[in-house]
């Protein structure tokens, strides 16, 4: 196997604060003030006091001294918390921005999919957008033409192919966009969290396609995701980024374990303070209330959901579903047994604790999706996706041949066997 990507001493520094004031007149004013030996009129208060750190204080190492190699045909997962540098790494690899130091060498054509549907023009038809998007992603017109039918077929929007994209539902747009990207003829494919969009069925189709790309066609894939279960599913090896450095690199299972063992609580990326009802945080924990993400098969799993209600509301449900391999295992909501969708909620902070019974989940990684919706009208108030947990079965470790089961879940099923007739 030869190398497809080689990264050496890669760093990316971002300057924070005012490295330029943003307007020419202010820059001139600053320059004039400094030239006369006065203080910089636009320097933030506080900055001047930390003399010792002044040189360091306004730069952030988004990536620091990364070294790694990727083999041809390998699918590698990149995981880490928000702000760990995943997106920066992908941006540098896909040439959207340059590194501050270091070199990246790549073999073959590189296509990156940092967002689904980049450059889609709402006024153009599906057909026109396939060509345009394909070209933006680096395909020649002839290549798109060759694969056109395949793309349309995969997207499942052939009935609307000559309709302007602005009339598409968001789901259809995503399907079409992913279909184009999935048929890129590049040797290296860089994919950011794009699978988070679209319905579960389509996500599954996408994972399948990506699997085909890396295993069947021998192309190299770099895949960033918060959904541990898709990383697990599809990448043999993974890389864990933390504060811009590679914390660990190796077999996905091991890396995901080390990521999840660093127990974490998921919080919404942006605060929606104007919303009537929204999530504060969600996490998984054991029976003692300790936050964790790795559970034993013989252990109950508790899910803690904290949400805030800003004004009285009575037609919402708070729900979650549990997914594995793009399949929804089941979903549940706090109105499940109330016989109605109307549950009156007063203003206040709420905590819900959900118990998931032991001896139910098979060993593997599961992903949780949380939501707050109203039934009539059909509205989504909030949604939270990046919570995963892993289940281990110690017995399996000891005796895999006997205790391993295929299937998404491994409930304890009673068998009553009686001998009715005896043959001689």
């Amino acid at each position, binding site marked *: 196997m030869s190398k497809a990507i080689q990264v050496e001493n890669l760093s990316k520094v971002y300057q924070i604060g005012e490295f330029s004031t943003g307007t020419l007149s202010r820059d001139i004013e600053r320059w004039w003030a400094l030239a006369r030996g006065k203080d910089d009129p636009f320097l933030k208060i506080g900055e001047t006091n930390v003399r010792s750190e002044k040189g360091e204080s306004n730069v952030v190492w988004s990536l620091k001294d990364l070294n790694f190699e990727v083999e041809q045909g390998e699918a590698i997962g990149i995981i880490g918390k928000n702000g760990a540098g995943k997106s920066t790494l992908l941006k540098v690899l896909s040439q959207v921005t340059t590194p501050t130091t270091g070199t990246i060498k790549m073999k073959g*054509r590189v296509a990156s999919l940092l967002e689904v549907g980049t*450059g889609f023009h709402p*006024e153009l038809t599906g057909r026109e957008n396939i060509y345009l998007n394909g070209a933006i992603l680096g395909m020649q017109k002839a290549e798109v033409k060759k694969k056109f039918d395949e793309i349309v077929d995969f997207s499942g929007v052939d009935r609307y192919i000559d309709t302007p994209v602005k009339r598409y539902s968001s789901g259809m747009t995503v399907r079409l966009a992913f279909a184009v990207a999935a048929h890129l003829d590049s040797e290296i494919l860089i994919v950011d969290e794009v699978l988070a969009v679209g319905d579960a069925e389509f996500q599954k189709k996408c994972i399948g396609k990506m699997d085909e790309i890396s295993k069947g066609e021998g192309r190299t894939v770099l895949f960033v995701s918060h959904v541990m279960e898709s990383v697990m599913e599809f990448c043999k090896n993974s890389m864990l980024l933390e504060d811009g450095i590679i914390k660990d690199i190796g077999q996905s299972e091991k890396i995901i374990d080390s990521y999840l063992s660093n127990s974490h609580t998921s919080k919404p990326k942006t605060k929606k303070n104007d919303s009537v009802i929204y999530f504060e945080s969600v996490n998984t924990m054991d029976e003692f209330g300790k936050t964790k993400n790795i559970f034993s098969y013989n252990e109950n799993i508790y899910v803690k959901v904290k949400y805030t209600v800003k004004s009285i509301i009575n037609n919402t449900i708070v729900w979650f579903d549990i997914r594995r391999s793009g399949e929804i295992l089941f979903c549940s909501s706090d109105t499940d047994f109330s016989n109605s969708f109307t549950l009156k909620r007063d203003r206040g902070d709420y905590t819900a604790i959900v118990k998931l019974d032991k001896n139910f989940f098979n060993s593997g990684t599961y992903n949780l999706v949380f939501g707050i919706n109203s039934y009539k009208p059909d509205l989504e108030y909030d949604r939270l996706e990046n919570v995963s947990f892993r289940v281990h079965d110690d017995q399996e470790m000891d005796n895999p041949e006997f205790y391993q089961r295929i299937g998404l879940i491994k409930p304890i099923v009673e068998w009553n066997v009686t001998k009715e007739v005896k043959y001689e």
Partner: protein
Amino acid sequence: MSNNIFDKSTDDSWDLIITPQKSWFDLQLRQIWRYRDLLMLFVRRDVVAFYKQTILGPLWYFIQPIATTIVFTFVFGNLAGLSTDGLPQPLFYLAGITAWSYFADCLTKTSTVFRDNQAIFGKVYFPRVISPLSIVISNLLRFGIQMFLYVGMIVYFLFQGVSFPLSWEILLFPVFVIFMAMQGLGLGMMITAMTTKYRDLSYLVTFGVQLMMYATTVVYPLSSLGGKMYWVVALNPMTFVIEGIKKSTLGVGVLTPETFLYTSVVSLVILTMGFLIFNKVEKNFVDTI
């Protein structure tokens, strides 16, 4: 072409090497060639998106020059009584307006390329210069369509008994169009590169272009100027382009070997500088905008 990437004999020959710095003169012409399909699709997108969901569609290409010509004929021709070098007033103004608006559109649209394409540029790589190039080409199509109006008006005045002393100089007409494109593209690329850091410039462009029109021979002929004013207007690189266009199509205007040389050198310098500055900024602008 992509097959020999797997050729084991070229095991250590990397196809792409990304390094922090890029030289000023690495213009990546091969990359641009590879993305030529994208260039044409961008042009198509701009043209199609322009008239979709409009009733009049491409007719809009004619409405703007016609309306402006009428206003100019009234204000500068009738009220101010400015000379038009003996040409019929509508024809004189239409020539200037059509040419000037091509230049102005190239310049103003190119000068916001980074800002307008922020979302795309932040997500996917292709040679950034494709975007300004597509603007110049799609505007060229529009200019071409507007030429029908111009030719139509020339024919109309021929029937009215006006004669135009044409010569071989008409062959220079396409060259002047290219000069306009070069200047619009070059200036626009310089400005967009600088607006990633300084927003002020984008405010300047909008009315700057308007003011610059009055320092170009759009509403008056160069021959009507004297002394200092002559030099101010003559140094404006667009002046001899407009003069050249009038001379080559209507037979009236200033076109000498010296003015031609001056215009071609200035156009080339503007374009080269634009390319270099744009090229320097494109790699990292995502971090600063």
